């Protein structure tokens, strides 16, 4: 049974159609990437999932049924627009938001110190939110989304205000939560994080789904047989079986000629006694796939129009 099924939802705002036709499903215990450029309909889709907006068409199934108050309690949400009471001290802020997720005050008092410790916020717990840095506020917001141990976690741009140390902290936490069997939907523009964390993803633009699947499936789908090599030697201008050689920093990207496979290029490099530090099949990055798919999608739409 899928944890979340989004079934052909559409959402209008007056004349504007924010979501035209979005469908995807999220499996239990996976990190699911919800990707798309700005204004593509991601936030609206999330709000439909959370029952903030009613869809004009289609429906959403959460844990095998419609949204209920009880299910809301089992969802942790980190919205794109962060929100904490600015004039209220951190502990009180988090206690209040946690009680709204049906925790008792005693439960919060028991669990909050561990969370504050983990996010290095213990010594700031008596400070007002406005006295905390942006990164600290973001970590506090994450605590608010997670302290009630939700089954489903929906996080919008979780790394946006974090330094590399805290980014790693949050990544480790997300992996840990996935290992505990929690289902996570993550919306972000940071494709490198998606590559490292997400099991599956959906890419939407202009309110429609452009791509859905596991990272491996998608990368294979867009693979080009290019190889990446690292070498201390200079490469000859022409290599048999290689159509194009491009230097990318320390790497060379080699595009095979028609009919040539990567292993044939490797054989050629060995034959020419070129020293190799590394040789790998170049998978397209998610960034590249993202740009390619969005561009193609938009060109297709223009042609349709």
């Amino acid at each position, binding site marked *: 049974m899928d944890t979340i099924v989004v079934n052909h939802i559409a959402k209008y*705002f007056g004349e504007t159609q924010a979501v035209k036709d979005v469908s995807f499903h999220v499996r239990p215990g996976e990190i699911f990437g919800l990707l798309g450029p700005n*204004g593509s309909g991601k936030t609206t889709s999330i709000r439909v999932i*959370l029952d903030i907006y009613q869809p004009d068409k289609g429906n959403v199934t959460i844990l095998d049924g419609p949204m209920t108050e009880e299910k809301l309690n089992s969802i942790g949400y980190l919205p794109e*627009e962060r929100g*904490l009471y*600015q004039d209220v001290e951190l502990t009180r802020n988090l206690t*209040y*938001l946690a009680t709204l997720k049906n925790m008792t005050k005693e439960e919060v008092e028991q669990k909050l110190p561990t969370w504050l410790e983990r996010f290095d916020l213990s010594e700031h717990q008596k400070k007002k939110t406005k006295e905390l840095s942006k990164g600290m506020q973001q970590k506090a917001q994450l605590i608010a989304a997670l302290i009630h141990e939700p089954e489903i976690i929906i996080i919008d741009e979780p790394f946006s205000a974090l330094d590399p140390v805290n980014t790693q902290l949050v990544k480790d936490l997300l992996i840990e939560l996935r290992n505990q069997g929690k289902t996570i939907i993550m919306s972000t523009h940071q494709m490198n994080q998606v590559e490292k964390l997400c099991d599956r993803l959906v890419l939407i633009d202009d309110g429609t789904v452009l791509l859905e699947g596991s990272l491996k499936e998608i990368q294979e789908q867009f693979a080009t047989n290019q190889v990446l090599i690292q070498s201390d030697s200079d490469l000859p201008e022409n290599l048999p079986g290689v159509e194009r050689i491009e230097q990318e920093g320390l790497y060379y990207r080699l595009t095979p000629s028609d009919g040539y496979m990567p292993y044939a290029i490797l054989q050629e490099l060995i034959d020419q006694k070129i020293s190799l530090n590394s040789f790998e099949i170049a998978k397209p990055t998610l960034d590249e796939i993202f740009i390619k798919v969005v561009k193609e999608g938009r060109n297709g739409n223009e042609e349709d129009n």
Partner: protein
Amino acid sequence: MKKIIDVARYEYIHHVAKRRFWIALLGMPLGFLLIMALSVLFSYLSFDNEPVGYIDQANLITQPQEVPEKIGFTDIFIQLLPYSDEDSARTDTENGKLQGFVVIPVGYQSTYSVTYFSNKQPSSDVVRQINRLIRENMLLQEQIPHLERIEAGSQISLQSLDGSQSSDGTGWHRIFVPILIGILYFILVMSCGGYLLQSLVEEKQNRTMEIMITSMTPNQLMIGKIVGNLGVGFTQILVWVVILAIGLLVFRDRLPFLGDLNLSPGYMAISLALLVLAFIVSAGLISIIGATMSTVEEGQSVNGLMVMPTMLPFYFFQTFLTNPNGIIPRILSYFPLSAPFSLSLRMAFTKIPAWEIISVFAIQIISIALVFWLSGKAFRRGLLEYSKKLKLRDLFVKEASNG
């Protein structure tokens, strides 16, 4: 229910725990007392209580002015001293022993004119005391029986045509409770409505709202906020009522009308219940404003409009007194935002049929349902519209979007 209580508790503590709440709370009665004290002090300082002399050339004054045994701080008394001749009175005036002197000439009974000698105008109190001295002495000569009682005037008893309402006084004290209800209602809408509006718009501005409405339904959130702010209002009122009660208790001997106040349980229950219901309607409307506004400043200017209907009965006060069952008092009783003061005021002066009271309550309850339904829509559509103001018609035709 737990979430409603959690929200209400948070709202209540959030406001009541603030120092500025208590400064405002105690500042109002203290400020009022300070103004009262200053006005008394200024009156006292500007009051000239030096004696006034009189020369009775007409031989009218057989009974001199009665000097009270005890003169209180606020009592106005100017002693009138008899003088045999103008010269000695003039000397005392020039020496500052008198503020002036009056000559009652021979033939006063035909001219009814006296001359007051002084370098400054006589105060109204001086004029009143001189007139009283002359009048009382002239009436004494007429040998009128029960003179004192006649001067005191008649005791007028009032009774409604159907005999259901009666009063043994002039009735002014009966407006005490309705006015108190009107003032309390005004304060509730003004201050608690303001708190509610501020809380909603702030949650919108600081983006907490999106978390709130993914934890509970919009109506739960709204009810919690209204209950919490109502609690803040009642705390305010309770403190003021206690201060007022202490004041009335201390000065009860000087406020004889207190015994005549209509504090019957039925009357008080209807007035207070209507006060709470009307505040809920106002709070619902304020929530709609809060949901559609994007800054606190915008909301506050619109909130001023919410306060105006609470004051409507004040503008038609005379109509309420002269014709409590007239068309305007009736309309204002049915209008949800002016009902508490209007109905309470009418009930003080006339008997209202039960069906009319029930209708007023029914309209309040229907209004609450309507306002809650509308504010539920406003919450869903307006609370996530961070950057621009939502128009009221948008609640019916479109939803807000952030992409």
